[in-house]
């Protein structure tokens, strides 16, 4: 694997990009330390070659972003889609020009918001919200306390743990290991139909546990935006 982290053993003046710090870095600005420290190499690369720079971000943050998102959305495939979409947008919109925090902060804050919104959209689907809310792009509808994120995915984890043993096993094989119905059926000596039924019941159950608490917060959050 490529060396993504720049080597800090040298002092800054002798790094390959050893020019002076950006103007605001000298002020009391909080993020300067982080921007210029471990993400400097990525920043310089983004400026010279956008695609290569995004690739570096991928190598550094794709894995932790996916494993973080999966805690919310409960499915590998969904988590990876959410994360890829963020990177795609980062690339097409050249978002890096507007970011005045570390990329890490931006990317993780975004993935947490998207995962949070996705999950609530998913919970609300049954409540017949308009199809319009299918695209969870309302980044501003984020919770104002950071601990709400942790609370949400810990609730998800707890709900999964409450599933009956075999159902949980099937659920995890499908969602985390990404196995096909047929593969699960073969491995556990079950019919595909049984796997299907078990998966449906598992998601229904998880949904029912989360719904009361988190749907309410969605509604009150939205009404506070409109009134």
């Amino acid at each position, binding site marked *: 694997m490529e060396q993504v982290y720049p080597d800090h053993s040298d002092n800054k003046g002798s790094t390959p990009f050893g020019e002076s710090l950006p103007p605001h870095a000298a002020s009391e600005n*909080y*993020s300067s*330390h*982080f921007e210029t420290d471990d993400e400097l190499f990525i920043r310089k690369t983004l400026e010279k070659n956008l*695609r290569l720079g*995004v*690739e570096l971000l*991928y*190598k550094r*943050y*794709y*894995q*932790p*972003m*996916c*494993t*973080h998102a*999966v*805690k919310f959305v409960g499915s*590998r495939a969904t988590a*990876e889609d959410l*994360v*890829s*979409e963020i*990177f*795609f947008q980062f*690339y*097409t919109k050249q978002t890096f020009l507007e970011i005045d*925090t*570390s990329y*890490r*902060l931006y990317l*993780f*804050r975004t993935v947490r918001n998207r995962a949070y919104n996705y999950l609530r959209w998913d919970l609300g689907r049954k409540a*017949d*919200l*308009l199809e*319009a*809310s299918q*695209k969870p792009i309302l980044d501003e509808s984020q919770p104002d*306390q*950071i*601990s709400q994120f*942790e*609370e949400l995915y*810990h609730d998800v*984890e707890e709900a999964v743990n*409450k599933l009956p043993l075999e159902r949980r096993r099937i659920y995890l094989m499908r969602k*985390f*290991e990404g196995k096909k119905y047929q593969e699960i059926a073969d491995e556990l000596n079950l019919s595909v139909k049984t796997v299907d039924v078990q998966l449906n*019941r598992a998601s*229904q*159950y998880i949904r*029912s546990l989360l719904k009361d608490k988190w749907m309410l917060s969605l*509604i009150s959050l*939205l*009404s506070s935006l*409109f*009134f």
Partner: protein
Amino acid sequence: MKAEINKEFIFSYLSGKTSALQKQMVDEWVKQPANEELFYKWLVEYEYQHPQYLTQLPEALKQFHAYADKFEADPTYEIFKETKASLKSSPRFWNTLMIAASLSLTLIALGWFFEDHIVYQTHSTTFGETRSILLSDKTQVTLNANSSLRVPRFGFGAKTREVFLKGEANFAVTHQTNNQKFVVKTDKDFEVVVLGTEFTVYSRQQRAKVVLNKGKVQLRYQEGQAQKQVMMKPGDLVTLDQRNHLQQIVTSQPEKYAAWKDHRFVFDDTTLEELGKIMEENYGLKVKIEDQALAKRTLVGSFRAENADELLEIISQIFNINIVRNGDSVILTDHSTAP
């Protein structure tokens, strides 16, 4: 306080081992931008140390480059176009959609506060009254006494057919060409899902029961923490007690459970005590039976009675007992033991 928050602290916070008070500390601490940076730095470290699974980075990169290639060739290319219909990619469509979404969400929020009045039309019966209601999908509902049925004013029959029942009602559900389900929800954590059929739902304080006359229904209910469901065939009678323990029996005469529709009362080894409950539920009468032995006596047969007094009259004749009615309270006493 600030000094207490370090990497170990955040790690245990991320793994869910923190108290509500400690969560509050994190919420405060992270408001400092420098701390927020630290938080995400530790979050990344945490994720690297406790991966839920291992991603396939090369695959993801290949996907990204394929996407970037397309974007370079055509800068208007957007990922959403691939999956969504072309109409949806125009910005105007999104604006309209956003307005529509916010409007409808406002409505939902409003409805949250005035749910009963705006969203639902409520049909209810008082004691001793039965009523027939024809829903917009031609489903015939007969409400028994002291019951209420809430029907959504908007969208009923469009996407879903869901009604909310308190008390007892018989449903003759029309079958839709698109096999649309009809769902009867109750406040006892159970619901009945049907295609096209005839059945009676009973959901009162003591217990709940569902009797199926024709067709096929699915009963979903909650027992303790678990979500359960059972399929019913014609003639099945399912009862749920207060804790939603389920009992399923087959009855040869499902009609008799809906006999109240025709002001008929069908009793099948029904004790006087149970009869008292039925009178209470349907007519709002407080029935008191002085004698335990009398309360255990049972009644078999089918009777026609237009109102509570007629029914009481019949019962007094059959059992040869004294019935004293005083307003809403009724006292049954045995002739032989009466002073």
